Structures are given as C-alpha cells and as structure tokens.
C-alpha cells in the first residue's frame, strides 16, 4: 500500500473546500500554550547524499564488536528467510491499513501472530502489538487500573528488579494519570523481590503487582509465590516476560494457582535485529474477561455471508476512532512490520527450534559466567537464571568496558548508576550466537584488565 503525501496544491484545495484560509487558521483553536513552538534542537535539513554519508559514518563508528550486552535487547540469529519474506512489497507497510478488511493477508498475519503470542504466554487473547516492552508495561499498568474496578487505589507495585528503563517509561506515562507506582526492594543476597518488601503492603488496596521473569539481573523470580501473594491481596498480576525464555519456563498463564492476568514484554528477540533503541515491538496478552480493557488493535477470525473464513478488526469500541477520549489508549500503535518478522521467525523455528535457542542461550551464559569467574569476576547472585548474570569487578565497570571496547568487545551493561549498592556490577549476556572461542576471547581480555594495576 503506497504512501502518497499531499502536495501543496492538494492542501490548498482541501482548505478551500472547508473554507479555511491557511493551516494556521485550521489549528487556531489550539491555545498557544499547548503548542510545541520552535523546534530549536532540530538541525537544518540535509540532502539525500549528505544524510546517506552521515548515516554511513555513524554506522561505521558503531563498529561490529563481539557482543555480550543484553539488558533488554538481545542478539539472536535471524534466519535469512525472515526478512526476505517480511520486506516483500505485500508486507512492507507498518500499519494495519485503513479499510483494513481489504487487506486479508495483513490481517491473517496479525491473527497468526496473536495466536502464537497467546499460546506462548498461556493466555486467551493477544493484541496486534505495541511500541516496545517499556511502553507495554505502562499500558499494562493503565489497563490493570481499568480492569480492576473494585480497587480504588490505582496503586501498582513495581519491584526494583524490573528493568530500570521500563520503570522510568511506565512512570513517565502513568504519573500524569494519577497512578502510584511504589517500588519494592530486592533481597541483597538473592537478587530477587524481597518477601519483607511485599509484607509492608499486605492488607492494603493494591491494584496490581508487576513480576518480571527473568528479572533485570537475569534471575528467575519465585513467580508462583508472588502470583499467589498478589491474588490473595486482591491484586492483579502483570507479568513482564522475555519471549525466548518461555520456550523453557512455565508460561505466565500457569503461574501460581490462577495464573497472571496481563502479560507483556519486548518482542525484539523474535527476529528483530539490534538497532540503537529500535524500532522494536511490545506484546500484550490477557485473560478473555479483560479483553475490553486491552489497548491496541485486535484481529478476529470470522465467516462471511457465504460461510467462508475471513479476518476482521474486532472489539474496535475500545479504540480511539470510536471511543475518542475514553479509548483504552490514545498513545499506542501496532508495529506491523516487526510483528510480521516475529510471526515468520516463530513459524520457521517452531516450538522445538525456539526451545533449542533458549537452551543454547542458557548454556552459553553458564559457560560465560564460569570463564569470567576464572578471569577474576565474581558472580553476584547464585540463583537460577536464564541468559544474563550480574558479575562484580575489582574496579569501575566504566574503565573495564572502555578497555574491552578498545579490543573490539562490548562487555555488558554497567549497573552502577541504577544499582549503586551493588558496587562495580556488570550485567553480562551470552546468546546462542556466542561460541566457545568468543567466550574464551572475552575471558582472556578481562583477565588481563582485572589483573592490571588499579587506576
């Protein structure tokens, strides 16, 4: 579906038809104070040749380091067929088209995607995706407040073991909507959500508890206990999960006695290449009873007048083109192109392929932790993990990471700023793309750096 912008002449004709003299006059009901004014941070326009050169130089400056950085976005092998199919002209559009039902292929792809995500998370229904994992957490908090009508507190407990950038994003989106997002401390010995932090909230009106699995430290939270505790308090459970890990771990729909209520996560590991900040996609699934509170588009399967199967956008009364200000969300979108890639990625891998990827990640990370331990790094938390681990070093992460970068190694994520109490703590990750040789190279480089004189 082609995107054809309006010419200056088109704009003039449309303004004439509605009897408005200029764009300025069209928007004059928006008060001056609400307008963004002059965009001072935006540099002047460049030509196509200039922008091509600039971007090539920036990409070259990134280099292609040997990567041990995860922290929310993960390097996985993407079969060549994924993007060969995704970038075909029929798919190459990022939105559900207007007059959506004319594009049965696009709708079917989204329907298949929804079915896969519902199955992977053990929930009844999925939406057509959201911006990314962080904004999906914000949408889940807002959804929980709408869905839990008996709870009046609009209070969603967010453990500090939830990714710090996700927490910041949720706070930015939710705070002006009068939600409270108190943080829960973690246990310093185990790196897991602390039982006594929960106890402080027992008996009060809690709308929901967020549980990230694996948590930001890569550790496996006691999800059954946490889920049952939240339900005993009358709170909903928002599960934030890594989709790859679900090939090995229990799906959130089976957590505890009753299962999680809303499941969200970052979809990037499913066939989306690493890029500086995205575009990635968020996913969201839930129980059938909450479907009318779920934001975003939903594709349904139906039959036409002749009884033939077809696909249609459904439950649209939740959405802004019908519900206006009372829509479930006025800020969400779906990431159609990336969802297409994820659907093809999951189709090619199948359940057993995804399980092989997840197992390989877990195995490589164990190998990495063992090798870096011999290089002088200390494993900070001993518990069960997926594909990330926190290591403590004998000097600041910043200097170590800079030294590693000099040798073409991206050594991990510096936790110092968000978790100063952990000391020189580094979050490392190894996916199935890392070989034993890669891990040995990191081990040797780190051993040299950590054994050098302290700065």
């Amino acid at each position, binding site marked *: 579906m082609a995107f054809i912008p309006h010419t200056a002449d088109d704009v003039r004709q449309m303004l004439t038809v509605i009897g408005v003299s200029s764009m300025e006059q069209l928007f004059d009901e928006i008060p001056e104070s609400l307008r963004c004014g002059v965009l001072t941070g935006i540099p002047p326009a460049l030509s196509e040749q200039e922008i091509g050169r600039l971007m090539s130089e920036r990409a070259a400056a990134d280099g292609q380091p040997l990567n041990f950085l995860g922290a929310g976005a993960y390097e996985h092998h993407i079969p060549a067929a994924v993007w060969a199919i995704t970038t075909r002209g029929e798919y190459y559009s990022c939105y559900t088209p207007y007059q959506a039902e004319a594009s049965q292929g696009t709708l079917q792809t989204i329907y298949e995607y929804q079915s896969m995500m519902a199955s992977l998370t053990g929930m009844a229904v999925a939406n057509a995706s959201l911006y990314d994992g962080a904004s999906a957490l914000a949408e889940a908090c807002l959804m929980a407040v709408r869905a839990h009508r008996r709870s009046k507190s609009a209070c969603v407990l967010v453990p500090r073991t939830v990714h710090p950038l996700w927490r910041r994003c949720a706070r930015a989106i939710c705070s002006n909507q009068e939600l409270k997002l108190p943080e829960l401390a973690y246990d310093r010995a185990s790196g897991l959500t602390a039982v006594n932090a929960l106890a402080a909230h027992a008996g009060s009106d809690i709308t929901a508890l967020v549980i990230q699995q694996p948590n930001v430290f890569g550790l496996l939270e006691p999800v059954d206990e946490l889920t049952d505790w939240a339900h005993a308090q009358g709170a909903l459970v928002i599960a934030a999960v890594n989709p790859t890990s679900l090939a090995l771990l229990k799906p959130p729909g089976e957590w505890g006695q009753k299962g999680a209520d809303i499941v969200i996560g970052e979809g990037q590991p499913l066939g989306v290449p690493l890029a500086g900040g995205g575009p990635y996609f968020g996913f969201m699934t839930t129980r059938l009873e909450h479907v009318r509170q779920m934001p975003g588009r939903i594709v349904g399967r139906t039959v036409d007048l002749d009884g033939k199967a077809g696909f249609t956008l459904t439950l649209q009364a939740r959405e802004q083109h*019908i519900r206006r200000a009372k829509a479930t969300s006025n800020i969400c979108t779906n990431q159609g192109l990336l969802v297409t890639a994820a659907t093809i990625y999951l189709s090619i891998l199948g359940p057993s392929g995804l399980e092989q990827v997840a197992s390989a990640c877990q195995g490589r990370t164990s190998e990495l932790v063992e090798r870096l331990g011999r290089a002088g790094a200390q494993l900070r938390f001993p518990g069960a993990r997926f594909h990330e681990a926190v290591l403590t070093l004998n000097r600041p992460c910043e200097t170590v990471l800079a030294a590693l970068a000099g040798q073409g190694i991206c050594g991990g994520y510096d936790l110092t700023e968000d978790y100063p109490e952990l000391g020189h703590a580094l979050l490392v990750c190894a996916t199935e793309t890392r070989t034993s040789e890669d891990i040995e190279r990191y081990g040797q480089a780190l051993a040299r750096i950590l054994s050098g004189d302290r700065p």
Partner: protein
Amino acid sequence: MTDTPKDLRYTDSHEWLRARPDGSVEIGITDHAQHALGDLVFVEVPDAGRKVTAGEACAVVESVKAASDVYSPLAGTVLESNTGLAATPEQINKDPYGAGWIMRIKPDDPGQLARFMDAQAYAALVASAAE
C-alpha cells in the same frame, strides 16, 4: 417509528426513567437509542452501592459499530444493576423498557422526575433530530 411509552420520563441523552413504588428510579436506554446503536454486543453496568452524580457516566453500551456512555440523570446511590446484561446484551435491543433495564437508583432528592421530558416531548425531540 420507535416506541415511546407514556408512563416514562426521558432525557435528551436518550435514557428513560421509571418511578418505582419504593421511591427508587429505574433507568435504561430508549428504543430510539438502541435502534441507533444497532445490535448490542457488550454492556457494562455500575456496581451496587456506587454513589453517582447527575450527568455522571456510569454504564457503557457497546454495539458492533459504536460505544456509548449511559449517564445517570439523577444524583443518588445505585441500588441494583442488571448484571444479566453482561451475558445477554441483546435484551436491550429486544425489550429496552423491560428486561433491558440497566440500573435502579435511589435518588438523593426524591420527586424530581417531573422535571424530565414526558413521552410527547421526547418523541418531538427524536422527530426534530431526524429532520
């Protein structure tokens, strides 16, 4: 032509009100409103015990093509809601003034019904909107 029973009162947002012997007021949406919405697929009713103000949105009716709030015409307390509508929203299409009732409210100030439109005035409103 839509049905507009003589014994009810009406609002310009298409709710009807019925005085009940116990002093409470039964509220639903009019035959005209259900026609305009089309086949209803979902109804959300307020919880019993909820305090509502006059003009407050307290129920939602959703059809295949639109969703609309239902406003409480009066300030008061919700005594009871038609929770059966969750499973059978089509009751509003079939019987908007009977089985399709939405909520019963105990008004803070009794005896206010006379200030709402009677059937004749409401029918005139609907007729003028149609022109």
